[in-house]
């Protein structure tokens, strides 16, 4: 009997309702007190094409995907064909056999098979084919041993606003699914059982929800964006909420406009942000350089997806780190922070605005599809802990014209910033190099001083940047470095390796620029092997680390670039092999 850990996958055609059903079961798991992580693996199209939605439930918070799928709900044969290899031995498949049959070569003997005519039951017994999704939830509930009252409570909660009829229909669908299992498979238990986890007040939301919500609470009142997967959720959410708080969103004509609008609103004194993904980020590059030289606080959310060009728009990747750190002509100070959990996505959204305002520069909030569009359970946010720090902003009153210098040379590199409307603060903010008063000049001495002033901010901000988190055993021989969505699978790998008697330590980087050189150096001390885990081909993080520690033999790359997030076993196995003296060390 497998208790309290299960990964369910719903697979079918896009538009079939896999997402709705997945969200339903995620809600049931949450009500059962379990921790949830979801992963959307859908095609970049609206109708048709194989799609799947993974819901992982367990007792540990902030894990990602499991090693394998425990329960596959396949609405068509294609879902079985696509995912049969990902199934854990001993797992089970619920297959809708209304129109199709499982060919023998796919019928793995190490799995339990539940072939149920979901669509037929939906149509004939309930009068609506659409509810086959809900029937499958009833089936799963019975097979996984979920508390039927919790399943019903969740369905009731989700459909309540659609009216009594819809609630009733879905409740009957649940019952039909449960009944079918009891009547046909009483002698064939799934081998899985779920008990309730710890009760507690928790939220469930996507990384993108947390970013948008965090930005709103932190005082963001302007957002401009151009729709792009997987960032659009943020613009959508803000478009609903910002007007209620006196703010505004603009759906720009392109990302060039979106970033320039963000600069404009910030120049005028409003906390402003944009959110985009790789292709849009490429377009924004020039104006971000302008924000750097004009010392305008802007927040840019990068929801990374698999590139280059159109790439795989709905798949995950960590291949835009170089773009954020190095993108653009010329040199500007900038900040890149990367949350590793949904909770951190909220915290860092708020922090991004404080860093931007305090140091007057562009701040990138870097996330990726496997985090920003994944839901997770988390503790409620402490709203009182959110502070709004606007730095050296002068947003009312007057300054003395002639004395006031917008780009004044200061010890910390930060100059007092006026906004339009403040008497006496009139000045030119030019993208051309300028003196402390904003007058365009190519004077060599001024140029050097101005570059030094702007870059001084990266030094003065060090203490305000999120520190890397150390997980595991601090003096273990084996280390792992990673960031973003990889926090989940790496943390799980560390826990499971510890249970196997292999101590490891994991440095979760949270600030990626300015690069945390001291923390990297300290982490390498005493380490025999350090694995750099990242989702890209060329090793963008790996190369940054090498610039700090040099060509050390301890450094080992663990890379994945197929558009899918790491499963913990993909991190555990190479480390296991490494620590097993009989096996040759062969890690790319």
């Amino acid at each position, binding site marked *: 009997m497998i208790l309290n850990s299960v990964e369910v996958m719903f697979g079918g055609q896009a538009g079939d309702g896999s997402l709705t059903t997945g969200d339903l079961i995620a809600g049931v798991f949450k009500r059962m007190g379990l921790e949830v992580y979801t992963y959307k693996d859908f095609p970049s199209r609206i109708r048709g094409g194989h799609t799947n939605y993974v819901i992982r439930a367990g007792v540990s918070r902030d894990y990602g995907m499991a090693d394998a799928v425990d329960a596959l709900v396949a609405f068509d044969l294609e879902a079985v064909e696509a995912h049969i290899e990902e199934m854990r031995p001993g797992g089970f498949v619920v297959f809708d056999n209304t129109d199709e049959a499982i060919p023998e070569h796919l019928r793995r003997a190490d799995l339990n098979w539940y072939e149920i005519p979901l669509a037929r039951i939906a149509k004939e017994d309930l009068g609506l084919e659409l509810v086959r999704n809900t029937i499958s939830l009833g089936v799963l509930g019975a097979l996984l041993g979920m508390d039927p009252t919790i399943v019903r409570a969740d369905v009731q909660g989700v459909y309540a606003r659609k009216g009594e009829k819809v609630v009733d229909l879905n409740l009957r669908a649940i019952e039909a699914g449960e009944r079918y299992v009891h009547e046909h498979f009483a002698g064939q238990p799934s081998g899985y059982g779920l008990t309730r986890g710890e009760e507690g007040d928790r939220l469930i939301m996507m990384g993108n929800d947390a970013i948008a919500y965090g930005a709103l609470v932190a005082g963001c009142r302007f957002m401009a964006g151009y729709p792009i997967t997987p960032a659009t959720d943020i613009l959508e959410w803000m478009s609903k909420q910002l007007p209620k708080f006196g703010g505004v969103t603009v759906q720009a*004509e392109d990302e060039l406009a979106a970033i320039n609008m963000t600069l404009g*609103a910030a120049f005028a*004194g409003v906390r402003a942000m944009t959110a985009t993904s790789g292709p849009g980020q490429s377009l924004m590059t020039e104006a971000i350089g302008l924000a750097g030289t004009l010392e305008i606080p802007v927040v840019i959310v990068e929801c990374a997806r698999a590139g280059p060009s159109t790439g795989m728009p709905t798949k995950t990747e960590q291949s835009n780190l170089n773009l954020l750190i190095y993108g653009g002509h010329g040199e500007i100070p900038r900040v890149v922070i990367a949350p590793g959990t949904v909770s951190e996505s909220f915290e860092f959204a708020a922090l991004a605005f404080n860093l931007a305002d305090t140091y007057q520069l562009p701040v990138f909030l870097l996330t990726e599809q496997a985090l920003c569009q994944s839901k997770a359970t988390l503790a409620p*946010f402490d709203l009182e802990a959110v502070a709004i720090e606007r730095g050296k902003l002068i947003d009312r009153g007057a300054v003395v014209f002639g004395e006031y210098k917008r780009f004044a040379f200061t010890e910390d590199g930060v100059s007092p910033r006026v906004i*339009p409307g403040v008497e006496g603060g009139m000045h030119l903010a030019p993208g051309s190099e300028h003196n402390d008063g904003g007058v365009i000049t190519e004077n060599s001495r001024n140029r050097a001083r101005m570059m030094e002033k702007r870059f001084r901010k990266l030094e003065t901000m060090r203490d305000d940047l999120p520190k890397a988190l150390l997980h595991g055993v601090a003096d273990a021989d084996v280390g792992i470095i990673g960031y973003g969505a990889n926090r989940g699978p790496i943390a799980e790998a560390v826990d499971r390796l510890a249970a196997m008697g292999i101590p490891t330590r994991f440095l979760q980087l949270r600030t990626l620029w300015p690069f945390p050189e001291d923390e990297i150096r300290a982490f390498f001390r005493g380490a025999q092997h350090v694995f750099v885990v990242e989702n890209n081909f060329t090793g963008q993080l790996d190369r940054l680390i090498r610039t700090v520690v040099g060509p050390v033999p301890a450094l080992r790359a663990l890379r994945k670039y197929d558009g899918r997030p790491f499963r913990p076993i993909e991190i555990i196995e190479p480390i296991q092999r490494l620590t097993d003296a009989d096996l040759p060390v062969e890690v790319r």
Partner: protein
Amino acid sequence: MATMLTPKDFATATPSWWCPGCGDFGVLAALKQALAELGRVPKDVAFISGIGCSGKISGYVHSYAFHGVHGRALPVATAVKLANRDLTVIAAGGDGDGYAIGAGHFVHAVRRNPDLTYIVMDNQTYGLTKGQASPTSATGYVASVSPNGNPDAPINGLALALAAGASFLARGFSAQPKQLVALLKAAIEHRGFSIVEVMSPCVTYNKVNTYAWFKEHVEDVAQRPDYAPNDRLAAFDALTREGQIPLGIVYEDDRPTLEDGVRLGETPIARLELRTDDPRFATLQDTFR
């Protein structure tokens, strides 16, 4: 206070980089005059410009001036207006900045109709890169990158804007300052997106479209009997008729602005008090429970 302002109140200490005789001097003088006559105060004027000779104009107007990247003045200006609706927002740039690299934004700013004024200083050439054809250069115009004559047809910026839903279109000539001041004043006072295209000759590179040439080709639409600037078809006819360059307010109507469309509150966003203890935040958190 308002009546006491003079153009000098909008002067900056920065010496101009323009060539002697450049049409842009006329635009600058007229704009300062218009702002002074309207009683706008420098602290409440945001002046956003693009790149090119004409883009330098923001540095010569005492205001909150923003000299951004090439072609993007309008997105910046639109957002400044949304961020603080109490400001007088003016954007300016050349024909290259507005109709080539910034053409996309131009059309969309027209559609949105934010309450700001856009001045296009049209010299029908690229001045700062030393004389290439611009999007408004005539077909056949000989320049360094088109030695056999410009192969492209010129853009008719105002007609393009009219098709996109413009609510205020005017054209002036930098050598006719009195009219230009009046046009700029009307544009700034117009509620919505106002475009003032100014024929602003380049004395260094454009030897075809000179002051003398313009004097022969311009015609004041207001002088025409029965010209009604609220008649779109008449405006389109005036803007596209061969051989003439209509001056004056070519088209004007009253339609909802971007600020109306997004239901912007009366308090400028930049003046909102930011509080993290707003009870609505806790209510929002409940939606994720």
